[in-house]
């Protein structure tokens, strides 16, 4: 069933979408790079533990590292090759972290080795275990281990399973393409998710700029599944879980709480498709769909790229401008700037947006806050970013957290986007949140 709804969350912004550059381009397989650089922590939680040794030959899809505890996921080999080195690898932000250098066999057929299938008839616990074993994390960008998110806490129940096909970040079209090209995987994934959540109904939330995807999915809903496709107005940050739940269910997730507190579980649509694609074959994630776009790219498009492919290799293949200036891993609203080209594609990389020199707006003058209130009207969780910004400048972090709900901020960037004074509000808040967390844990350890 396809339903149009004018319901949405309050506030938010409308940045230029720039999706038309790639949303008509089908997903294409990316070539295998000669060297895979694979960090062991591509998810929230503990890094995976390496179980191979240097010099060992591995097949594509083989387990390279196992999950270290519950809040962790394993890593599978993205290519068939030989483990060159187990050492620190460059990761985003300029640091290094534990990882594996994997040299690709140049003439291998790159057949994927499969594990034990997890059938739909398996118990919910076995399916959750299967999801962890497949190394699945939130592919929308957060990279939170999916099996942890799907675990319904004792005493709670799930009524609504929400499949998040919003993709509100400008430029990105991966979820859009996945919805158009992997409908069967998505519905298989939904079957697995229904087994573990025991939800009564499923809503696939899609923004009105992807009507073709909504029609496509709505036409293919299996008769036995309680699925509705709901089209909502375009607005950033509707893809944020809390905003989407408000848009679809009209309920607010309590501050500091989780969707399950309003009897909902929300899963990204590409994550759902991966569950449906991998579990029946007992496979793990070894590649993902990435939108590569931006004014600095010649061959814009959506590519299925092996995890661990170095950014430099990717950019060379898509004809990036020589004078590239800024690269955002993810979209321009919440993505992180790449500090160098030696980092690699990880499970959370939903897009690579590249700007050349001429496309980057020169650093604009920062004016004082004129209290225009644009940020107050933009904040989707009704904070007062203007006040928070002033408090941050005077380092009044405790007041920010205790009086002005700093910790509820999920850094969507709407406030900084509209600020006429160019004040880097989100940057202030990120720093402040880090300091508040540190102070809290210091107090806890006294």
């Amino acid at each position, binding site marked *: 069933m396809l339903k149009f709804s004018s319901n949405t969350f309050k506030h938010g912004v409308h940045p230029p979408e720039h999706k038309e550059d790639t949303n008509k381009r089908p997903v294409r397989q990316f070539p295998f790079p000669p060297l895979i650089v694979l960090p062991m922590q591509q998810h929230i939680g503990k890094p995976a533990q390496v179980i191979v040794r240097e010099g060992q030959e591995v097949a594509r899809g083989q387990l390279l590292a196992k999950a270290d505890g519950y809040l962790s996921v394993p890593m599978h080999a993205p290519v068939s090759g030989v483990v060159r080195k187990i050492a620190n690898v460059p990761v985003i932000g300029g640091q290094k972290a534990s990882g594996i250098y994997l040299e690709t066999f140049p003439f291998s057929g790159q057949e994927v080795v499969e594990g034990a299938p997890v059938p739909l008839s398996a118990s919910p616990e076995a399916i959750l275990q299967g999801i962890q074993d497949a190394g699945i994390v939130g592919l929308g960008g957060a990279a939170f281990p999916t099996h942890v998110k799907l675990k319904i806490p004792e005493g709670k129940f799930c009524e609504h399973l929400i499949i998040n096909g919003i993709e509100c970040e400008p430029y990105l079209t991966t979820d859009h393409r996945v919805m158009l090209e992997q409908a069967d995987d998505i519905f298989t994934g939904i079957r697995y998710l229904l087994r573990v959540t025991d939800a009564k109904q499923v809503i696939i939330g899609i923004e009105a700029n992807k009507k073709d995807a909504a029609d496509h999915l709505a036409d293919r809903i299996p008769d036995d599944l309680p699925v509705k496709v709901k089209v909502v107005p375009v607005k950033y940050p509707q893809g944020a879980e809390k905003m989407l739940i408000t848009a679809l269910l009209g309920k607010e997730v309590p501050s500091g709480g989780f969707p399950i507190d309003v009897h909902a579980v929300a899963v990204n649509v590409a994550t759902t498709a991966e569950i449906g694609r991998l579990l029946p074959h007992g496979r793990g994630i070894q590649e993902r769909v990435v939108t590569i776009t931006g004014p600095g790219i010649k061959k814009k498009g959506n590519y299925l790229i092996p995890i661990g492919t170095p950014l430099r290799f990717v950019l060379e293949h898509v004809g990036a401008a020589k004078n590239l200036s800024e690269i955002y891993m993810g979209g321009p609203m*919440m993505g992180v700037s790449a500090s160098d080209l030696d980092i690699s594609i990880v499970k959370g990389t939903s897009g690579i947006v590249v700007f050349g020199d001429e496309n980057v707006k020169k650093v604009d003058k920062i004016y004082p806050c004129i209290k225009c209130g644009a940020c*107050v009207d933009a904040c989707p969780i009704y904070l*007062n970013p203007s006040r928070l910004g002033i408090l941050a400048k005077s380092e009044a972090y405790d007041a920010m957290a205790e009086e002005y709900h700093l910790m509820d901020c999920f850094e969507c960037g709407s406030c*900084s986007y509209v600020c006429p004074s160019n004040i880097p509000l989100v940057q202030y808040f990120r720093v402040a949140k880090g300091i508040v967390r540190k102070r809290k844990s210091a107090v806890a350890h006294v």
Partner: protein
Amino acid sequence: MFSKTLRISSSPHINKGVGVDVIMRNVVYALLPVAAFAVYAFGINALLVIVTSLIACVLTEHLLCRLSNRPSTIADGSAVITGLLLGLTLPPIFPLWMTFIGGVLAVALGKFIFGGLGYNAFNPALVGRAILQAAFPVAITTWHPAFLADRFTRVSESVLAFPFAKPVVDGISGATPLSAFKFDQVATESADLALGLISGSIGETSSLLIALGGLYLIVRKMMNWRIPVAILGAVYVLSGILYWINPEIYPSPEFMLFSGGLMLGAVFMATDMVGSPITPLGVVIYGIFIGLLVVVIRIWGGLPEGVMYAILLGNALSPHIDQLIRPRVYGT
């Protein structure tokens, strides 16, 4: 192949692109028709007053920045607005040397002393005007009729008065509709008021052009429409009630809306972002407070006009409103 160093920045990496300077520039655009009409109505004297006020404000801002070893901030356009607004609130034959002092003090004491744009508690133009009102009570209440035949050729002696000399009283003067009502109980036609065919401060007379300027800014989302609506609504309702009780002694609500500086104040001064609250409910409270004060001062106070003090008091109240009125945070 790629040898260049990458730029890194904190997300979000894009901005809507409507900067402070853009907003200020548009406020100036919105004020230009008002100023043009004022010059048309009051002639060369009004032009001299507006230009003097502009020069004083911009020059003061520039010199104070230089003196404090900071880059000049005149490019942000706020000093231009202060100059225009101050000029528009003065009588058409206000002595230029007084205008100049008003402009200097508006920027120096109204804004710069607090730390510049964004930190000022009060609307700088109104601070300047309040000082002038206290210092030169006679000159600032010496009105002048509009549409005199020789208005484009004759410069008033009062305008060119020598600094600190005995005030020159200009031969012709015209009572404002408000003072006529307050002191002589003469009401003016509302249509004349709305179109600006009356005596008054330079830019206060054409309510229609002021409203159009405000509408332009509201449409471009550069002005909070709630503020003028709340102020004008409060004035209309309270004066309407009084008029209904006794139309003999109280002026009609239409007269209250279109007379004096209410329109200019409600649209261009009370909406100064720095001095008004930040939340939607906060600005409504602020607007109603100003509107009620305007009526109270005009009807029961000693002055014929109360818009200036009402807005200044509203500015003073605004941080407290923000302290008290906080939006409910999502999920709480």
